């Protein structure tokens, strides 16, 4: 049997492709929105994953450094390390920082870590981890700094020894890394004038023994819950597993923004569906005369329905492909990470095909109402 759908498309190929490209752009935007959503969720967890820690020890009655201020005394880490089942610990500090490159301010999130512990930035793609106790730092490549660049912070000059890729904080700020002592010093970085004022008031200006969290690895086979309870019982701290920190992070911090983007994506998808349906309906109505002739010469409803549905589905698939090309070519232009996951793309494809079929049903309904007599005369 001759494929009516295919012949009709071939006959007006330009129009069909243009329409697909148009819907494709819309679907591309949907894909990008999903990508932005994925990026947001993924970015939030990057830092956490990068630590490869099993336990997080934070200030008592707090939810950890990603949710609120958590302060611990640095020497707690030695006590934690002494617990049964704990393999290694690393003290961490976190703070927002402003760097300047060519006099342009760059907002970054600084992390200080024990350079002699198990932790090392795994996202390093160039250079080396921090080896010296002072004046070395690692920056993310998106800051624009290069290896061996010298960065002035306060009264100190730091040497860039390593570059990371895609290292961002849970709120999407670019990461930089310092040794723990340097980071502790930076937490209390003040101008000369302020230091003088503070000293005059009798305020101690260099309390550099505070940290924000301790991460720990455990011995093989150790039970995280038991160790955590043990630590909490003896030390006045709060212990989370890596998984708990991760779910706290997603639940408390990014849920609202994720929902915001999710809502937007759903609305966009609805709009795309309505537009696809309308286009398919118009496409069918543009063939009233041909459908009347087909009925007149004896084509069954099956043939006519097949023509319309096949065309709609093909339109949907082509639009989807156009959407993929469109979104992939634009994705890298976005300042924050957008992630296109193949399962998301596949789900969208399934939705598009369903919408195409549903959309074509409206067209089919009207096509079946066309009177074959309307092909006669005129």
């Amino acid at each position: 049997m001759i494929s009516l759908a295919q012949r009709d498309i071939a006959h007006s190929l330009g129009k069909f492709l243009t329409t697909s490209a148009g819907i494709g752009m819309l679907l591309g935007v949907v894909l990008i929105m999903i990508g932005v959503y994925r990026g947001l969720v993924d970015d939030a967890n990057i830092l956490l994953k990068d630590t490869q820690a099993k336990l997080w020890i934070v200030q008592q009655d707090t939810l950890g450094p990603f949710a609120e201020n958590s302060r611990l005394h640095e020497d707690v880490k030695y006590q934690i390390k002494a617990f049964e089942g704990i393999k290694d610990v690393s003290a961490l500090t976190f703070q927002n920082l402003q760097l300047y490159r060519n006099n342009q301010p760059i907002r970054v999130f600084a992390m200080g870590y024990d350079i002699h512990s198990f932790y090392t930035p795994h996202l390093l793609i160039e250079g080396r981890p921090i080896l010296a106790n002072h004046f070395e730092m690692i920056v993310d490549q998106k800051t624009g700094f290069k290896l061996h660049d010298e960065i002035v912070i306060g009264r100190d000059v730091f040497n860039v020894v390593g570059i990371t890729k895609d290292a961002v904080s849970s709120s999407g700020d670019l990461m930089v890394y310092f040794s723990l002592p340097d980071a502790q010093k930076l937490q209390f970085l003040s101008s000369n004038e302020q230091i003088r004022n503070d000293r005059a008031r009798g305020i101690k200006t260099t309390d550099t023994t505070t940290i924000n969290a301790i991460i720990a690895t455990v011995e093989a086979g150790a039970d995280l819950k038991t160790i955590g309870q043990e630590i909490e019982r003896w030390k006045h701290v709060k212990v989370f597993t890596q998984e708990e920190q991760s779910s706290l992070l997603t639940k408390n911090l990014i849920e609202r923004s994720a929902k915001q983007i999710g809502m937007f994506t759903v609305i966009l998808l609805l709009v795309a569906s309505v537009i696809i349906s309308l286009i398919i309906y118009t496409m069918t109505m543009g063939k009233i005369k041909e459908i009347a002739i087909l009925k007149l010469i004896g084509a069954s409803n099956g043939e006519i329905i097949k023509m319309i549905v096949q065309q709609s589905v093909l339109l949907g698939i082509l639009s989807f492909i156009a959407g993929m090309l469109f979104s992939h070519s634009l994705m890298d232009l976005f300042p924050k990470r957008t992630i296109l996951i193949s399962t998301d793309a596949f789900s969208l494809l399934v939705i598009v095909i369903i919408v195409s079929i549903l959309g074509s049903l409206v067209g089919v309904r009207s096509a079946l109402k066309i009177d074959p007599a309307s092909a006669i005369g005129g």
Partner: protein
Amino acid sequence: MPSSHQSVIKVEQLAKTYGKGENAVMAIKECSFEIFKGETVALLGPSGSGKTTLITMIGCITEPTQGKLYLDGELIFDQHWRINDTRKLRRQKIGFIFQSHNLIPFLNVEENITLVPLMNNTNPKEATLKAKELLEYLGVENKLAAMPSQLSGGQSQRVAIARSLANNPKIILADEPTAALDAERALSVMRLLKKLATEQDVAILVVTHDERMIPLFDRIIRVNDGYVSEEAKS
């Protein structure tokens, strides 16, 4: 003269009223006649007399209001349709030719002709062969791969005739098939239909305005104000 007396089209007191109440139009008031195998019959009448209505009722496109319709000996309509699938009947037994050629613009000439046979599950090779044969017969064999938009009016009309013949119909219904053609072409198309009727035993009913065609027909049925009358050929 009819080659045999086998009835192919038979209408009995067929009537059609469009619309209801005040707006009702009685297009066909009462029609009874019979057309036999191999006959070529002209349907004449002034504009608005109900010719198209009559021919579309015979083609099962317009539902009659009253009366009976038999095609190829089978009762097709009596108060209501007596067959389930009028389109199947059309694609198997009836060929249509219209005033405008009504070819499907997105199919080429060959596909336009083979579409109906293929829907009837004819072997594709056979269908193509038949299409070539018909086009040759109609003198447009070089247009097999052309699109309808690339044909002249006369060529389109001949392709449309080929299409109406492709399913080996028992009945050909034509509504002013020559209106779009010049006198010369019109006459040759009519001669062709006449030849088909005699050679292939098809019953042909042609609506026409053109008095010059009359000598070519076996019989003439006149439609006037919704009634039909047989007219003796002068």
